[in-house]
C-alpha cells in the first residue's frame, strides 16, 4: 500500500521532469498565458533550485495533505477545483459500475450455463463488438441519433439551462436525462468485458469437482448454479471490480470531454490542453488514489466472500 503510493507519486514526479529543459521553461514556452508571476510561483512550488530528491521530498510532503498548489489558469487552489468536480465524476463512475455488474453478471451466467445456445452465440457477438467498438465513436453516433435526429436526450452538460426553475422532481428528471448517454457509453466497454469474463469464470467453476458432488447429492440444477457455482465464480469477478476502475477513470477523460460533463476527467483534459501543471498533477494523483481506494474495497469484499483468505 505505502510503496504503491510512493511509486505513484514518484512516477508522477518523473513525468513532471520529463519535459525537455526545466518544466518551468517548457510550460512557459508552450503556453503564453503563463506569466512571469506564475513562473516564479512554480519555481517556489517545486523548489527547482534544489537537488531532485529534496524537490521530491518536499513535493511528497505537500501532496500527503493534498496540497497541489494553485492553478495557473485562475489562481484558485487545485484542491478546491478538484473537490468541486469530484462528485460529478463519482456519480458517473459509480452508476456505470453498478450498471455493468447488474447487466453483465446475469448475461455471463446465462451464456455459460447454456453454452453453445442461441443466446450464448448472440452474446458472444455482442461482447466482441462491445470491446472492439471505439466507445467515443459510439458516443458520437448516439449523440447524433438521440440528440440531433430524435431530440430525445440532451447531449452535453449536467443540467439544462433553465435548471434552477424546475421543481425537485423536475431537477431529478433533468439530471437523469443528462446522465443516460454518458453512463451508457462509459459502461459499454466494461459491460462487454465483464460479461465475457463472467462467462469464462462460470465455465471454469462448472467444471469443478464440487459441482459434480452437488449434483450427485440430488440438488436441483438451479441450486447447483446459483448457490454452489455462483458463490465461487463471484470471487474472481469481484477482483475484476478493482481492476476495472482504472479503465473507467481513463474512459472518464474521453466521455466527460465529449459530453461536456463537469467532472474531474474533463478538468484534467482541459488542464493538459492548457499545460496547467499543478492541476494536471493533482488530477493524476487523485485518480490514482481513487483506483487504490477501489482496489481496497474490492479486497474487502473478497475477504468477505472467500473463507479461505482469512486463514492464510
Amino acid at each position, binding site marked *: 500500500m505505502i510503496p504503491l503510493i510512493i511509486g505513484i507519486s514518484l512516477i508522477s514526479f518523473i513525468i513532471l521532469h520529463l519535459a525537455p529543459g526545466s518544466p518551468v521553461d517548457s510550460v512557459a514556452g508552450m503556453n503564453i498565458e503563463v506569466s512571469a508571476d506564475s513562473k516564479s510561483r512554480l519555481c517556489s512550488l517545486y523548489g527547482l533550485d534544489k537537488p531532485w530528491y529534496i524537490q521530491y521530498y518536499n513535493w511528497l510532503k505537500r501532496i500527503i495533505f493534498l496540497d497541489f498548489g494553485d492553478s495557473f489558469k485562475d489562481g484558485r487552489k487545485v484542491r478546491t477545483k478538484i473537490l468541486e468536480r469530484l462528485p460529478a465524476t463519482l456519480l458517473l463512475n459509480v452508476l456505470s459500475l453498478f450498471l455493468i455488474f447488474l447487466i453483465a453478471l446475469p448475461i455471463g451466467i446465462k451464456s455459460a450455463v447454456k453454452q453453445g445456445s442461441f443466446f450464448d452465440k448472440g452474446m458472444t457477438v455482442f461482447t466482441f463488438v462491445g470491446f472492439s467498438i471505439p466507445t467515443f465513436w459510439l458516443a458520437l453516433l448516439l449523440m447524433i441519433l438521440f440528440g440531433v435526429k430524435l431530440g430525445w436526450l440532451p447531449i452535453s452538460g449536467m443540467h439544462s439551462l433553465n435548471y434552477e426553475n424546475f421543481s425537485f422532481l423536475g431537477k431529478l428528471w433533468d439530471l437523469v436525462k443528462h446522465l443516460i448517454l454518458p453512463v451508457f457509453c462509459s459502461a459499454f466497454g466494461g459491460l462487454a468485458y465483464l460479461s465475457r469474463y463472467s462467462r469464462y469464470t462460470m465455465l471454469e467453476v462448472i467444471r469443478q469437482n464440487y459441482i459434480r458432488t452437488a449434483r450427485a447429492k440430488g440438488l436441483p440444477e438451479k441450486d447447483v448454479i446459483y448457490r454452489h457455482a455462483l458463490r465461487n465464480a463471484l470471487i474472481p469477478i469481484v477482483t475484476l471490480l478493482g481492476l476495472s476502475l482504472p479503465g473507467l477513470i481513463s474512459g472518464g477523460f474521453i466521455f466527460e470531454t465529449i459530453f461536456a460533463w463537469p467532472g474531474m476527467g474533463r478538468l484534467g483534459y482541459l488542464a493538459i490542453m492548457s499545460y496547467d501543471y499543478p492541476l494536471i498533477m493533482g488530477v493524476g494523483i487523485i485518480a490514482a488514489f481513487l483506483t487504490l481506494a477501489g482496489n481496497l474495497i474490492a479486497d474487502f469484499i473478497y475477504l468477505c466472500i472467500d473463507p479461505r*483468505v*482469512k*486463514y*492464510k
Partner: protein
Amino acid sequence: MEDLLEIKDLKKYFFLKKGLFSFNKETIKAVDNISFSIKKGEILGLVGESGSGKSTIAKLIVRLIYPQEGKIFFKKEEIGKFSREKLSKNVQMIFQDPFASLNPKLSIGTIIGEVVRVRNKISGEICSKGEVREEIKRILATVGLPINILSDYPHQFSGGQRQRIGIARALAMRPRLIIADEPVSSLDISIQAQIINLLLDLKEEFNLSFLFIAHDLNLVKYLSQRMLVMYKGKIVEEGLSEEIYRNPQNLYTQQLIESIPKIKYWL
C-alpha cells in the same frame, strides 16, 4: 562395501507465515537431523507417507534446495563445494510425474541432447552433431525406446514411455547415483512392472546406485535390500528390508506394515 554417498546430521526447516498480519512463524521440520549412507551399487529404499520429508531429502542431495545444517559427502568429498556441473555429472534424478517432468515444447532429441552436450563440455570431449545423435540413440535403445523418436514431442508418448525418456535423460549424464523420487507411483500397474524391471536391468548393466523413494512398502521391499523408514522428518527405522518387514521395531513402522492391504488369498 564402500560408501558412495554419506549424509550427516542434515536439517532443513521451512518457516511459514501463520496469518496475514501475524509475525510469528510456524516452523516445519521437513528434514530433522538425518544421517545415512548409500553404498556403491546398492538400491537404498526410503519409505514414508506424504509430508514425511522424503522428497525434501532428494532435493537436498541434488541441491535444488539448501540445508540449514549438516553435510552431504559424495565419495568423501563435500557436495556443497561441488560446482553445478560436477554434481550433475555424478548425481541425477528421476521424477514422479512423467507428464510434468518433460518440457512439452521441446523434442526428445533436444531434451536428451542438451544433457549429452553438457556432459561433453564437462569431460572436455568435443563431439560433432552426428556423434551426439548417435549417443542419444544409444541411450534411447538402452531404456527400451525406439531410436527414431528424436524429433517427436513428449505429448506423443504414453506415461510409461515418458518415464523411460526421463530415465534416458538421467542416464545421458552417466551418473554414479540416481535419486528416484516415486518414479512409478503415478503409473498404471501394468506399466509399473516395466519400469521397475528396467531400473533393475540398468543397475546391473552400469553398476549404478539408487536412492529409491516411495510410499509403497511392498515395492521398496521388493527392490531394495536395505531401507529407511521416515516419519515427520526423522528416520524412525533403518535396516535390512526383509528384517524390517518381518519384525518392525518402531511403532510407526508397525502401523505402516499393518495397514498395507494384503491379498489375503495369497497368504
